[in-house]
């Protein structure tokens, strides 16, 4: 007898976005596609993508052109640290009203820029377009150009209307804005460097909890200067120097691959993918940088740093590994590259990843995820909470790695949680980050609080059977 119990399986479109390693061929996963209307998607929009990439530029006025919400929800949420200006932690909005929507918001935008520039001595303004602005057709380019000339500073429109694509389209809009910012006067061409010390642009680190500072310190120790970070703790003047770098190293490829490619085309700066998550990836990335720069002395310094730092953290990692061995983790993060790194990093502390998914992973990243996963691992794109629940439960995950919306879901299931997104509180990069990561995993997986969830009051209560009498 079949009763029509609706469930996830009814959506055949979603089935194409989920696979189990070992059961299907690896190129079957559908990704980089539009979400289905009516799903509880964990994804965000174009504006969100653009905002998260640009927000860490510390001395810019980030002006959101639209009704109030878009500015409210992105007010100081990125956790990216600054060594200088704190201007980026304010929330600026044109707060469009009905009249502006009917008659156009250009005049209000121009006024907002005038007023803000008068109040804050900024050299750079990013003006973000939102959904409504895209529909009513305000000419952001023209307003920004006029204001730029009037005030003699860089005022750059960011084409980030929410509906024109997904979060990835926002990354690209942000990169386009950055390219306009770093554009030197005259024809773009390779810039000759006078400084004999090789310098790199570090792309795709947003200095959450000060991570870019840690990596910058490693690079300094091996004799490499960080020219500028895109965009953690960056500022107008440093970003302008970007074309002078010898090499672009890139951590978050999802947001920065496009920028790296364009900088190679425009300024002849080669780029290299790096990852500073976990001991192995950190060591490999430092070695790759030294190999690329082909400097024997640097290679020696890299080996010395790896030896020293590894020795310093290994005992602690081993300690946590011994406590965590055999635990199972589920991973649901924004981009594919982070997911790949996390699988490797979990292996270092003795944990198997049994479910892995991303909001905006690309096809080649899913191939890699498939290659490095164990048989039976569930791999899924653009998952919704029911799917996350189902596979975490089925696979017996002890821990979920995710962002703000996933945290309470994990907790409700009695599953431990780590924020690997904006709300992270400790740096998770490099050697010190590897220890922090292991400690965070340990402190949540092995917390005494879970004892009280697994046996409800030692059988004292009826496990919710007496819940909520109908009135």
């Amino acid at each position: 007898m079949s009763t029509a119990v609706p469930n996830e399986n009814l959506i055949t479109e979603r089935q194409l976005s989920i696979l189990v390693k070992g059961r299907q061929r690896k190129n079957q996963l559908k990704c980089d596609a539009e979400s289905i209307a009516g799903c509880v998607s964990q994804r965000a929009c174009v504006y969100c993508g653009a905002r998260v990439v640009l927000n860490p530029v510390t001395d810019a006025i980030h002006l959101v052109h639209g009704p109030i919400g878009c500015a409210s929800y992105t007010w100081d949420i990125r956790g990216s640290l600054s060594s200088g200006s704190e201007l980026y932690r304010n929330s600026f909005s044109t707060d469009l009203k009905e009249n502006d929507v009917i008659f156009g918001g250009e005049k209000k935008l121009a006024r907002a820029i005038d007023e803000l520039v008068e109040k804050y001595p900024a050299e750079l303004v990013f003006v973000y377009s939102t959904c409504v602005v895209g529909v009513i057709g305000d000419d952001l380019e023209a307003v920004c150009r006029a204001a730029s000339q009037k005030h003699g500073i860089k005022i750059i429109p960011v084409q980030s209307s929410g509906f024109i694509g997904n979060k990835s389209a926002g990354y690209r809009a942000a990169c386009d804005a950055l390219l306009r910012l770093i554009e030197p006067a005259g024809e773009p061409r390779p810039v000759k460097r006078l400084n004999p010390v090789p310098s790199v642009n570090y792309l795709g680190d947003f200095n959450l909890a000060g991570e870019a500072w840690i990596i910058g310190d490693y690079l300094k120790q091996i004799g490499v200067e960080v020219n500028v970070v895109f965009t953690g703790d960056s500022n107008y003047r440093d970003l302008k120097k970007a074309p002078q770098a010898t090499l672009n190293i890139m951590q978050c490829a999802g947001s920065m691959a496009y920028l790296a490619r364009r900088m190679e085309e425009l300024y002849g700066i080669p780029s290299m993918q790096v990852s500073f998550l976990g001991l192995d990836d950190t060591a490999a990335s430092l070695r790759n940088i030294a190999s690329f720069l082909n400097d024997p002395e640097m290679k020696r310094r890299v080996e010395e740093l790896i030896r020293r730092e590894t020795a310093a953290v290994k005992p602690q990692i081993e300690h946590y590994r011994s406590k965590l061995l055999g635990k199972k983790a589920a991973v649901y993060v924004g981009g594919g590259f982070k997911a790949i790194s996390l699988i490797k990093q979990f292996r270092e502390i003795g944990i198997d990843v049994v479910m892995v998914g991303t909001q905006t992973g690309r096809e080649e990243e899913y191939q890699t995820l498939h290659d490095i996963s164990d048989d039976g691992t569930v791999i899924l794109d653009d998952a919704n909470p029911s799917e996350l629940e189902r596979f975490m439960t089925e696979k017996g995950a002890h821990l979920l790695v995710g962002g703000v919306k996933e945290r309470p879901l994990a907790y409700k299931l009695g599953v431990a949680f780590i924020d690997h997104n904006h709300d992270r509180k400790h740096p998770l990069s490099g050697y010190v980050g590897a220890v922090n990561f292991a400690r965070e995993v340990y402190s949540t997986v092995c917390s005494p609080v879970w004892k009280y969830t697994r046996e409800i009051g030692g059988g004292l209560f009826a496990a919710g059977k007496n819940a909520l009498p109908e009135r």
Partner: protein
Amino acid sequence: MLDCTPKELIERTGGMINPAKTCQPIGAMYAALGIHNCMPHSHGSQGCCAYHRSHLTRHFREPVMATTSSFTEGASVFGGGGNLKTAIKNVFAIYNPDVMAVHTTCLSETIGDDVPTIIKSAEVPEGKLVIHANTPSYQGSHITGFSNMVKGMVTYLARATAEDKKEQVNIIPGFVNPGDMREIKRLADSMGIKFIMFPDTSGVLDSPMTGKFHMFPAGGARVDDIRDAGNSKLTLALGYYASSDAAHLLERNCQVPAVTLKTPIGIKATDELLMLLRGKFVREIPYELEEERGQLVDVMTDCHHHFYGKKVAIFGDPDIIIGLTEFVLSLGMRPVHVLTGTPGATLGGPKGILEKEIKAMLAASGLEGRVKAAGDLFELHQWIKNEPVDLLMGNTYGKYIARAEDIPFVRVGFPVMDRSTHPYMPIVGYRGALRLVEMISSALLDRQDRDAADEDLELVM
């Protein structure tokens, strides 16, 4: 330093700096979560839904479920009707709620989607309901959105079916925490009055941890109860801004008399609520509540010397700041700055109601103060720089000002994203007032202890 605010006051016309409000749809989403077995649905781009869910999750620390029409460029050019119809089909097929509560966004409003017509032509399974509210983000604030979704509940659900009105009261609690809703229900319960509360997010956004995830937790107002609200003999709208429109709509549609009271924050507003219930339902106020009131007054007298003459700045949602202002006045404090980001009057209503009401409260205590609706925290910060205060009360965003000016800070309102337990702990009723006294007094005295020189540190305060 996080202090980027200059002291000199400047006239501004180009938007908000550090807003004290957010947009309508999140209020509608919060209200919809207060219906049992209801899926809120955001008719717009994916980002709106993601932001609202994240923001609510940060405040409540609970899973917040909602679906989205996932607008694309095509939908924005040709209309979102197709997306909404697909969404309605999918939501019932996958998640199987009893109700789907659609709210619009600035995008779907601007392109002019006719949501009621789309809903009528959609495939809604037998016995299932789709309700909607228009919540353009470019009008009002999250409070307006809450109010609009409650109106949607009345329009779609409440019906006058009984010949005589029943001995029961409808309570529209306003945009308050689930803990507040529980407390208001307890007050009505302890008077033995039958009530229907809608929306009711208790049991939804303060649900217990059971080791299981429930897409639709056990709480929330039942659809049958909201239907029956049309048969009640009275509707109590708690809070003019969040609740009174729906109450008046219910009065028009179902002839249920509506009374608007302040959100019952503090002793006076709670007295008014209980007196009204007593009068309308001819009930004794039980000793339990009399005792609670007496205890509150006892504590207020015990420590009134801590409060006397202290200057306070209060910001937040209109109904909340009205209650807070009244209560701190009753403690002998001086609310010299009161501000909300929400416009001061409902759409089409008389202008400046909020400013007038709060200024009247101040005047009755012989005080003057700066009061503003549709303001922002940049302005509040400037006011404080020009006239310093001893205490700041408001949501999490106040922490920047509190730090820059080194002022004690009491977190109250929405959102509170840097502390926990607030969704469970009421600020309404006598118990809630007692808690406010504790929070205010701890903030002031902790500061006094911190700043005291060794010889001035007091054991007994």
